[in-house]
């Protein structure tokens, strides 16, 4: 059997470009490849994706495998798993990384079982152990109460990485690399699913994941009307509104506003946490924010251990005065 070598990154595309998660993974992957003293390869799977190979090279790939087939237009387990199995058997990587996205979360475990190896999903950090040269896969467990480092002794070592956990390299358009086309070789009759429709989530204003400022509320906000006050503050700061799980479960805000292990991951410059306790579950979605500001009536709330600045007291008194003062300061 050939020896497993190199790091392979599954690149997802979005609107005809590499998705941001893909450039992040190429950035992180190139560091892993360097630590192994091996090559970084990318794989593009989809329909009409061949032209993105050079972009993957610019972002750090030494080699790009391209599987371009109309049957791969939409992600389906039954098409992507056999294609990635084929790619993995040709590329024979030591490490295979994907994004913790709706594609990666579905594909990575099933592919790992097919290749008789293992995967870790939702990693925060990947590193190469200097002694064993194995991939150290760090991920939150127990709802963010703890973190675990896993290793796998079978190859490829597969991991999915959360968005924004890695940083892209500055693209270098002059970089050269090898492009290898692989035939999908799919049998359409073996596909047991059909994508009937795709419906994008409607977002008013700035997307939570892209916002520089996020104003989040917890159970203590108490109502949809309460969240309107957070909305006003967010609007003033050109930010977005987030929430912990209870406000989403209670319908005070849309489910898409949830920040946390089971919701979205945000990395804004400023995270204003209002009337939320700061459970591990929630913090694992926002702890990478540059500055956290807490407003909570309980001085013992965990959020004050995470925050840089805080005010202890009833948010209903604090938020309006805070918003007013900021309006005045920002107008200057």
């Amino acid at each position, binding site marked *: 059997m050939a020896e497993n070598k190199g790091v392979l990154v599954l690149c997802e595309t979005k609107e005809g470009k590499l998705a941001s998660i893909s450039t992040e993974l190429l950035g992180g992957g190139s560091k892993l490849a360097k630590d192994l003293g091996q090559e970084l390869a990318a794989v593009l799977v989809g329909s009409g994706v061949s032209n993105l190979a050079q972009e993957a090279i610019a972002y750090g790939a030494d080699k790009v495998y391209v599987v371009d087939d109309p049957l791969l237009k939409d992600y389906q387990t039954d098409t992507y798993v056999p294609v990635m199995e084929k790619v993995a058997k040709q590329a024979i990587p030591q490490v295979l990384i994907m994004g913790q996205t709706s594609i990666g979360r579905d594909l990575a475990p099933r592919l790992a079982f097919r290749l008789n190896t293992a995967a870790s999903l939702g990693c925060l950090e990947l590193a190469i152990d200097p002694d064993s040269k194995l991939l150290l896969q760090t*991920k939150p467990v127990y709802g963010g109460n703890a973190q675990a480092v896993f290793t796998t002794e079978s190859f490829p070592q597969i991991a999915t990485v959360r968005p924004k956990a890695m940083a892209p390299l500055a693209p270098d358009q002059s970089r050269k690399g090898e492009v290898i086309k692989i035939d999908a070789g799919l049998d359409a009759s073996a596909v047991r699913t059909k994508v*009937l429709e795709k419906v994008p989530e409607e977002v008013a204003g700035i997307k939570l994941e892209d916002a520089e400022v996020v104003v989040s509320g917890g159970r203590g906000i108490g109502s949809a009307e309460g969240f309107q006050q957070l909305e006003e503050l967010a609007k003033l700061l050109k930010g977005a509104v987030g929430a912990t799980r209870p406000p989403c479960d209670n319908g005070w805000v849309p489910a898409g506003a949830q920040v946390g292990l089971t919701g979205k991951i945000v990395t804004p410059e400023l995270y204003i946490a209002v009337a939320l306790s700061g459970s591990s579950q929630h913090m694992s979605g926002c702890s990478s924010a540059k500055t956290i500001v807490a407003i909570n009536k309980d001085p013992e709330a965990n959020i004050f251990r995470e925050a840089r600045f805080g005010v202890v007291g009833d948010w209903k008194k604090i938020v*309006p005065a805070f918003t007013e003062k900021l309006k005045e300061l920002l107008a200057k």
Partner: protein
Amino acid sequence: MNMIVCVKQVIDPEAPPASFKIDPSGNKVVPPAGVSPVVDPYAEYAVEAALKIKDASGGKVTALSLGSNQLRDIVKKPLAMGADELILLEDEAFDGSDSWSTAYGLAMAIKKIGEYDIILCGREASDWNAGQVGSGIAEILGLPSVTLAEKIDISDGKAKVQRKTDEGYEVIEISLPCLITASNEIGEPRYPTIKGIMAAKKKEPVVWKPADIGVDAAQIGASGRHTKLAKLFQPVREGKCEIVEGEGLEEAAVNLAVKLREVKVL
């Protein structure tokens, strides 16, 4: 419609974070004293998904749980919610499983059950948050699968599954038999009714040992793992919060705004 739902007993994830402790051996969590374990909340969504299908199309729901020391009062909850049968894969040999050995044990039990149209799992479990067992079972049994289901409709011998995606959702038609993992959007799990609780009390689970499902001890539990836990730790919190004060809360709020401006956060 024959449905099998995989559930599991876990440490209560809603227990206060301060009660969360890691064993000095550094590879397992110490169950908090005085806090009863629960059925994994993610698995409860899968139970709810199965019961919704049963409500709409009829059928039989079998709950299947793998582990050791499964407290009957806890693991009977799916029965109390409305499931028809409970099968426990119970043996110390199942201890220390990872996604691989768990999926393998469950898949072998499902093979033994034999008749099924839909297998349901939670999208992950609240302890190790691995998110792989459902896909693993599907792969071992060679079934089509859809993960992260928000809604499931059955018609003409097929399932129409609304699947949560990063952009919104997609609707996938899938042939039966199949495996589906349920996401929280499926809807709040129903509370057991008094009648359900009484019925569950009277019902004894079927208990299977590794030999009953024809598995080799080397493929299950800790010896069947494909991953190694190198380290388990609690992230250190910095705890350098500057509390901004004032004469009354309004002034504190004003001072906070001024402060954020001063340090150029805003």
